[in-house]
């Protein structure tokens, strides 16, 4: 894929990922953040964290299913935007919601399973954001880096459970996120299984081949 197309794709991701934030700022300026602005801003930022995180987790499955390589060039950018939104989400909770009331927040993290889960998701994204540069890949080695970055799935699972547990009876949108995540995980696991089968078949094929060489 040409450099121009890749840049264009990244431009689209930048644009799309900044729209939710820009919209919040616009609504803030118009005093249009509903009657409970802090709650509205928190949930909106949380929604977009999860959407963008799932989008970044979707890149590899899309590559696997469609057999195209371009999604991989967007994976890191989407991951970083998910981190950006989760930081805003967490900051609103700390600053606007609890106004640095650390003891009460700490109590909530320990006592409320959905907050524990949300915190786990947030924390698991930190090492990923910190090691997102090409330099860090080199320093860690591709293999170790890849292994570390499987944490992204932990973040996805933690984020989805966080939403599932906080949603009131009667809400249904949380199930869409869980279903999407399950589908993405299924594709990845299916791919792993498929490759294992293929490897075994290749090995057996190789053995048959060696055997036939010895035959005569």
């Amino acid at each position, binding site marked *: 894929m040409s450099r121009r197309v890749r840049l264009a794709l990244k431009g689209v991701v930048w644009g799309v990922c900044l729209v939710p934030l820009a919209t919040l700022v616009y609504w803030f300026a118009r005093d249009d953040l509903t*009657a409970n602005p802090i709650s509205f801003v928190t949930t909106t930022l949380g929604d977009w964290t999860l959407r963008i995180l799932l989008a970044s987790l979707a890149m590899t499955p899309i590559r696997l299913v469609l057999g195209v390589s371009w999604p991989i060039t967007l994976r890191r950018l989407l991951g970083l935007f998910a981190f950006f939104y989760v930081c805003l989400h967490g900051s609103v909770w700390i600053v606007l919601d609890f106004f640095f009331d650390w003891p009460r927040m700490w109590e909530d993290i320990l006592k409320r399973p959905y907050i524990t889960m949300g915190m786990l998701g947030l924390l698991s994204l930190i090492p990923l954001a910190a090691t997102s540069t090409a330099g860090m890949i080199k320093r860690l080695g591709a293999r170790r880096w890849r292994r570390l970055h499987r944490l992204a799935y932990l973040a996805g699972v933690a984020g989805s459970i966080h939403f599932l547990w906080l949603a009131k009876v009667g809400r249904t949108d949380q199930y869409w996120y869980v279903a999407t995540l399950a589908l993405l995980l299924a594709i990845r696991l299916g791919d792993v299984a498929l490759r294992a089968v293929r490897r075994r078949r290749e090995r057996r094929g190789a053995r048959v081949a060696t055997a036939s060489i010895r035959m005569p």
Partner: protein
Amino acid sequence: MLISRAPRFTSNDITDAKHYLTRREWMLGAAALTLLPGESAAATPQGEPLKAARNDAQSLREPATKFESATTYNNFYEFGVNKPDPARLAHTLKPRPWTVRVDGLVHKPKTHDIDDLLRLSPLEERVYALRCVEGWSMIIPWIGFPLASLLKRAEPTGQAKYAEFTTLLDPSQFPGQRSSLFGFSLDWPYTEGLRLDEALHPLTLLTVGMYGQVLPNQNGAPVRVVVPWKYGFKSAKSIVRIRLTSEQPATAWNKAAPQEYGFYSNVNPAVDHPRWSQATERRIGEFRRRPTLPFNGYADQVAPLYASLDLKKYY
């Protein structure tokens, strides 16, 4: 006894206009200049005016929540599960003609036409605090009369121990009552219940208006109850039937999630919701959380009703 006789709101609780304005400015920033007219605390009601003398003895001395907030930020699952749904879909409800049946364990069961009900007893305005179980609160000037006036007319029998309130069941008027893709809904019709002494308590208001006007559809038109010392969902909206019973009635939210929503559901900062703390609340329009008061600040009037009740067990 956990609940002390806490004073109601002291003058410290009343937001000084000076701070209120500072906060507004902070919230609005430079955009304050672009504010649309009619957004002051005393927003101009758009509905049909309803006259009532204020009952000062039963009114908080606190600025009312913006009318716009009180009518656009609602939990009313009959319209939908999201806060803006009730305001958006309110037009689907037809509050006239309407009747309210009072029956069950009473000597004089009767079906009241809503317009007769409005004339049954003198209307009064009462400024009450409303505390939602989700952790936010509002100050609302309701219009109505004590529910006791209606119930006493029906002459409850000696066996009557509870009152059950039933909300209108009509999916054509309440889109939220239509079956959904995921099959979830509350068990319609919405029912709520009070102990008879709670229902007869002078604070319990049969409510037909707010902010000097007829009750907007999204706030439970044409008639609802307001029980200010309990979480908001205990105050049934758009009531078509009040039935007195000897057994504790099943209630909609209690059936949906019994460990989260008890029959009593008195506002209590010492008893957490299983998923969040009830120690604090956000007053709509304010920035910082404020502590939640036992019985929502009405402890001196209602705590005696629960003198022999373990409020942790009967949450």
